[in-house]
């Protein structure tokens, strides 16, 4: 890593630092509000998404601590819970109604507000302009709106936590009729309306963001930055945005129809229902229609969550192995494969809804097909680190953990995707284990990897390494301890979303295991607080970055000043001459060549 920049590090850094200061001065007139709140700078917007996401993550994780207490210790009371939840946990015992509200909001918050907005909102914003060589997004204003719609959606969701009848409580998938009828559940009252409004706003935010990301990547690449020279992060964020733009509108329609059924007497999803002592007038709707609409988004959604992590892991694995990513084109093609197939597998969530078995067979085929591009990616990652010169930065560890978790969770998808096996496993803890490992933990690892790796770019400081290592090992071990045994519970048929298993002859033998899982979950929760502590203290007190390119990376974001101002580059935007993974001997003792270095005479482009 002893490259030129490091050799003359202090000098270079100094001039650059000076330039930024200067740049900052020009904008000094800019009011705080326009600079940090209603900012149109993609980097600031990215940080806004990240901080909002972190706040949501703490709330969502705290909810899981509450309901894990109930699951682990159904016979005990926890007075502290009453302090937080008041009426809902009278005497320190969670009520079933609020248990269901908590799991519903936990899922909604983590899937949408953290792992969608918090993840791709953050990294698409920070990385796209910096890595493709643009001064900002195609439409900085729309980009700002995207954040503020997200903020508004957050406000509605947050308010819904405090209404008298409680927040939505029909599961994060909110299937009608349960979610449509106030008589069916108290959570289907005002809380549900707020949930639906919140989600509708969320969709708008996501569309505004996504369209911007796509346009920016297609049109604003700097000179010489052909599509095949893009870092894989950008490819991944590109397909993430494509998935979102094509599938979120379908969720939107599903949500709107549900609002109609709830408030205006339509019968899109309702038919032949007797509830609350009377027969309802609705005839002819289909509850299954909602599930089709929901999962048409819902499955692409899981890849919306997964792809950014895949892109960042590719980047970080290659960078810290000091080796080019293996199989760049195979990686791009498998991303395309995953994107296309992601639209064609949604009904694997509905094998046991009474759907036509023939249709089911088609979805089995397409679902297992998606395992092929997934496998290709895993093998390429493995070959990338093979015979590398691996530097265990915290980001690298999380990227390795990402691969490990993706393997574990992807393999259980093969069980679930086969309808003949799903018919027993559906809606058991096996599914809970599957998607927490592959989506929950793996995507979080991708996100952590990205945060640790690009923190120096975001704030001009490093996060603390020791705390990072502790965070990694506790989380990695904890995640396996929590979710590995859940597969056993699921294979034994233990249903998910149960408040208490003690009355069940078939499931009560897992009581001790549930207690164990709860304890580990609480430990892991505190380990995440360690991350939060590290994150916020490092913003102001972390070790300063003194060199422009601390990780020795060929990509463009490291050619900007250490603390880039709005506009990113001080002078001209640099021109690109080579691909993003040009790790090789540059003849001067460096093991990489920046994208901005022209090809040497006689050197072949990748």
């Amino acid at each position, binding site marked *: 890593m002893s490259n030129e920049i490091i050799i003359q590090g202090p000098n270079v850094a100094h001039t650059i630092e000076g330039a930024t200061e200067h740049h900052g001065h020009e904008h000094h007139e800019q009011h705080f509000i326009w600079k940090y709140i209603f900012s149109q700078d993609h980097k600031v917007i990215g940080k806004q998404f990240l901080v909002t996401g972190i706040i949501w993550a703490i709330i969502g994780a705290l909810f899981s601590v509450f309901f894990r207490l109930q699951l682990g210790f159904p016979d005990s009371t926890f007075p502290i819970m009453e302090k937080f939840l008041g009426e809902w946990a009278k005497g320190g015992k969670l009520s079933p109604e609020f248990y269901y509200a908590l799991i519903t909001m936990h899922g909604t918050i983590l899937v949408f507000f953290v792992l969608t907005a918090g993840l791709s909102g953050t990294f698409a914003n920070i990385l796209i302009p910096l890595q493709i060589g643009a001064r900002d997004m195609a439409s900085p204003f729309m980009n700002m709106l995207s954040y503020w719609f997200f903020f508004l959606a957050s406000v509605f969701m947050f308010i819904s936590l405090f209404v008298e009848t409680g927040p939505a409580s029909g599961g994060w998938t909110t299937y009608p009729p*349960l979610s449509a009828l106030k008589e069916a559940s108290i959570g289907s009252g005002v809380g549900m309306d707020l949930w639906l409004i919140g989600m509708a706003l969320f969709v708008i935010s996501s569309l505004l963001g996504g369209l911007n990301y796509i346009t920016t990547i297609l049109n604003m690449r700097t000179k010489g930055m052909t599509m095949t020279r893009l870092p894989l992060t950008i490819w991944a964020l590109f397909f993430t945005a494509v998935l979102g733009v094509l599938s979120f509108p379908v969720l939107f329609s599903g949500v709107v129809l549900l609002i109609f059924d709830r408030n205006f007497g339509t019968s899109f999803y309702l038919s032949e229902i007797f509830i609350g002592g009377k027969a309802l007038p609705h005839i002819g709707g289909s509850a299954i229609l909602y599930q089709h609409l929901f999962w048409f988004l819902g499955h692409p959604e899981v890849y919306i969550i997964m792809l950014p992590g895949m892109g960042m892991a590719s980047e970080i694995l290659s960078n810290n192995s000091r080796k*080019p990513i293996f199989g760049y084109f195979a990686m791009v093609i498998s991303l395309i494969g995953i994107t296309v197939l992601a639209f064609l597998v949604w009904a694997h969530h509905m094998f046991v809804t009474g759907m036509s078995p023939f249709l089911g*067979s088609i979805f089995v085929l397409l679902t297992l097909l998606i395992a092929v591009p997934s496998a290709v990616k895993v093998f390429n990652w493995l070959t990338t680190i093979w015979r590398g010169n691996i530097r*265990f930065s915290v980001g690298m560890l999380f990227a390795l953990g990402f691969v490990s978790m993706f393997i574990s969770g992807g393999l259980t998808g093969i069980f679930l995707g*086969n309808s003949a096996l799903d018919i027993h496993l559906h809606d058991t803890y096996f599914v809970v284990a599957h998607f927490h490992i592959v989506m929950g933990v793996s995507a979080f690892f991708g996100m952590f990897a990205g945060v640790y790796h690009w923190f120096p770019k975001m704030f001009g400081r490093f996060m*603390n390494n020791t705390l990072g290592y502790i965070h990694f090992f506790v989380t990695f071990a904890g995640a396996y301890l929590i979710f*590995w045994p859940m597969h056993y519970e699921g294979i034994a048929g233990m249903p998910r979303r149960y408040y208490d298993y003690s009355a069940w002859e078939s499931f009560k033998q897992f009581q001790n295991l549930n207690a164990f899982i709860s304890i580990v979950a609480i430990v892991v929760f505190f380990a995440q607080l360690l991350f939060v502590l590290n994150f916020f203290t490092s913003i102001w007190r972390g070790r300063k970055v003194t060199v422009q390119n601390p990780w020795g990376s060929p990509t463009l974001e490291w050619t900007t000043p250490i603390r880039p101002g709005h506009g990113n580059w001080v002078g001209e935007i640099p021109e690109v001459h080579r691909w993003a993974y040009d790790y090789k001997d540059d003849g001067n003792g460096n093991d990489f060549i920046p994208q901005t270095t022209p090809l040497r005479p006689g050197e072949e482009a990748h």
Partner: protein
Amino acid sequence: MSGFITIALIILVFIIIYQIGKASEYAGVIRGEEKVKAQTNRTIGWLLLAFFILGLYGIWVCHQLLKDKMLPESASVEGVNYDSMFSATMWVTGIVFFATQALLFWFAFRYQSTEKRKPYFLAHNNKLELIWTTIPAIAMAALVAVGLRNWMNITSEAPKNSQVVEIVGKQFNWLIRYPGKDGVLGKRDFRNIDDANNILGLDWKDKDNQDDIIVQNGELHLIIGRPVKLIIGSRDVIHDVGLAHFRFKMDAVPGIVTTLWFTPKYTSEQMKKMTGNPDFVYEISCDQMCGKGHYSMRGTVIVQTQAEYDTWMASQPSYYSGNNPDAKTTAPAADAKPQQKTDSVKAITMK
């Protein structure tokens, strides 16, 4: 008070860990950054290797602890195929799991950074890509083939001699209807439902209903060796008939009828002996989130010999007799709402 102490302790631990983190950062500066980095790298390499080995050990321990808590062998004939397909899939995925995880941790450890190491700048190799595209594709094709064969079998038409039973979910219990002597389930309509005297909304004008039997305690009585076809419905929200011991489940959706069939293989009594658990019962769990009582929506399956079943059945009064004292003259349409007399209504017919 104890809550306060706990919180104070947690905060203390946080401060200590944070200080350690900070201190190690300064130590790094004092002792020479490069040297500390190299040392840390080595330590992390060992930790990863240790993680992998402990992980393997953990998997083994987990298996030892839990294997006796799992389901007994399949209680349905069709579930036998399920179990074998499950273990085949387990073998395939298990091998891939151990191979890839081993490579991941081994590469990380083996190729950790050292002064001397020169990375091997390999960027692509189409032959390798081809191999690891084809092999998973073939493996998946094989799994799909087995899966679809089993799927076709279990979703095919129920055998002609099947016993037919209707099971209807409502918040939060199961109602079970047997067709009675005529072997036919009569028509029902949700607008006839009355919790007091017609919980399933049977249409009393349909004579086939008069001998139908409704069991309200959630007991599903089945006959060993005789296929059973379940007619599944719901009165209110979506539920799901979960039959873990039989390796089946199917949603109960208001407005549509779903079905499921299987053949019970062991009586409840036999199962008690096989599991050595005198309290053993086959349970029906609701497997689709249905409201605050979801976790308590429990039914049971009682598999009996034909003789035991016949005796039990003979003791069950028809629902009609219990709820229509002078049946002939009652006007069942009385509680139907007049404004809903449209013809397009799909009355649920099981005939």
